[in-house]
């Protein structure tokens, strides 16, 4: 057992899932939301010479994806330390 106790292990996993859920909501919102389902509506908004829906589909979603992974990495590292389960 690497955790201090059973409750810690449960709490760690719960926190991990909560973080995962939040990030995946953003992941879904920028690509499937802004880039696909609401693209037509957003296309009425101009964004630096792009139609906004088109920009999300061909540029914006990719940039957000990269940010999501780095946020996940930073948050998980902090969490690992807090629970004392980081690697030596």
């Amino acid at each position: 057992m690497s955790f201090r106790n059973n409750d810690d292990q449960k709490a760690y996993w719960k926190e991990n899932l909560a973080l995962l859920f939040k990030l995946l909501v953003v992941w879904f919102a920028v690509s499937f939301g802004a880039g696909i389902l609401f693209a037509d509506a957003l296309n009425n908004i101009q964004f630096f010479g792009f139609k906004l829906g088109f920009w999300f589909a061909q540029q914006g979603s990719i940039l957000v994806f990269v940010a999501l992974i780095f946020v996940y990495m930073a948050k998980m590292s902090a969490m690992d330390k807090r629970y004392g389960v980081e690697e030596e």
Partner: protein
Amino acid sequence: MDVQTLTFIIVGATFALYIAIAIWARAGSTNDFYVAGGGVPPVLNGMATAADWMSAASFISMAGLISFMGYDGAVYLMGWTGGYVLLALCLAPYLRKFGKFTVPDFIGDRYYSQTARTVAVFCAIFVCFTYVAGQMRGVGVVFSRFLEVDIVTGVVLGMVIVFFYTVLGGMKGITYTQVAQFCVMVFAYVVPAVFISIMVTGHILPQTGFGATLADGSGMHLLQKLDNLSTDLGFHEYTTGTKSTIDVFFITFALMVGTAGLPHVIVRFFTVPKVHDARKSAGYALAFIAIVYTTAPSLAAFARVNMIETINGPELTGTSYEEAPSWIKNWEQTGLIEFNDKNGDGVMFYSGDERNEMTVDRDIMVLANPEIANLPAWVIALVAAGGVAAALSTSAGLLLVISTSVSHDLLKRNFAPNITDKAELFYARLAAGVAIVIAGYFGINPPGFVAQVVAFAFGLAASSFFPAIIMGIFSKRMNDKGAVAGMLSGIAFTATYIIYFKFVNPEANIPDNWLFGISPEGIGTLGMIVNFVVAFLVFKVTDEAPEEIQELVESIRYPKGAGEASAH
């Protein structure tokens, strides 16, 4: 110096570099051969992953595809990058902690079942071969145009190089060559894009030039111009799509989960030293991929405006074939562009309606772009080197998965468990050699169905591996019967749908006949859902996974105690 000589020098220099790296990084053990000794730093692994993932198709065809599809091209951009988010958040860290060599290893051990392992091995081999065949065609195209050797010589040359560093270096050799190939590739992709962006819009960054106004003083936005040109010439508007929203949704989803389930990408996360590095390395990989993937749609738009204006002339009345720029005649020889003077006036005209006299292959958009834009000869040579690098890096990664699947999953874990490390290494090399020969054969005699089977590769990965791995990590109690039933029904459903519309009855492949309006390209998403549902139902009526498996799953959920990837 002319383009030809420069191309030989630049491509030759990159080849020499790859071989030098292979000799320096040759593998001494199966551990080196399968996972590069598990000691690759995350930034380098990120580059290698990016090179592995960006295939000849990404490099050569993607911008062209987007150029012809407009908004709809976004399915590839979002699909192929969004999958990395799933990979980084839901798969990579846990698989790294699990610490085995291959994807079938995980599936076999987690579901304590040889059947599950065998199903996974065959899926892995099938997915990889489908892919390799496509890569070899890319090598052939690049060689035949830029080096002006015939395709057979070109493919054989490519095979010899890949053979050399895959068989000698294994994962270790491949990883470090891929780092070099990544640099060549990105440089070769971005440099022409920057040149063209400056030319068309005055912006250095293609990503901002994409939304900028044109440099010709008209004050019109590039995309506005493109929309106008497209509608005038009888194409659909560039910034809106022709596919139905539901189809775009399903294709994007299938490409995302397919990407996350591709064995040659997953296996890359076994090569880093720690779980923390696996998370980090996925981030770097996507950041590096994003350089190319945000440049591609910009390049697509520039290239389209450029091409239309070159062929149709500034007044959009057509230009004389006699005075056509040399790139048109150069590329006519490869059959990638054709002029059919329907009205016999000697004037070329390109449009989306009955006035059209040109057949333009999408692959031309990246490869001929520097010539269309009149860029210096060394840029053209660079693009050739980049195309070759993209094809070689992906083929090598795929061939390695095929060879590990045979030597490790089939031989060691199924037929000959007592085999020594040395013998296993020998079989791994032998399998790599055989796989290269088969791939080379497909490169020289490309089967007509390559384009059709790519949908297959993604569909299969999406409907088999992805759900099985996700359930293996996120459900402690999921059992062998559920997983196997899920994989088999997912594959059966997806395969039947694709085979029916692509091979048995291709005439029926129209939106009206599709299930819920989902094309065969997007059906993997539904296959994935079928997999999840069937697995859950079977699980409900059978016993849950044994205690020791549940403990194993508990233990992969946190980083502490991750050792090197190992066979046992």
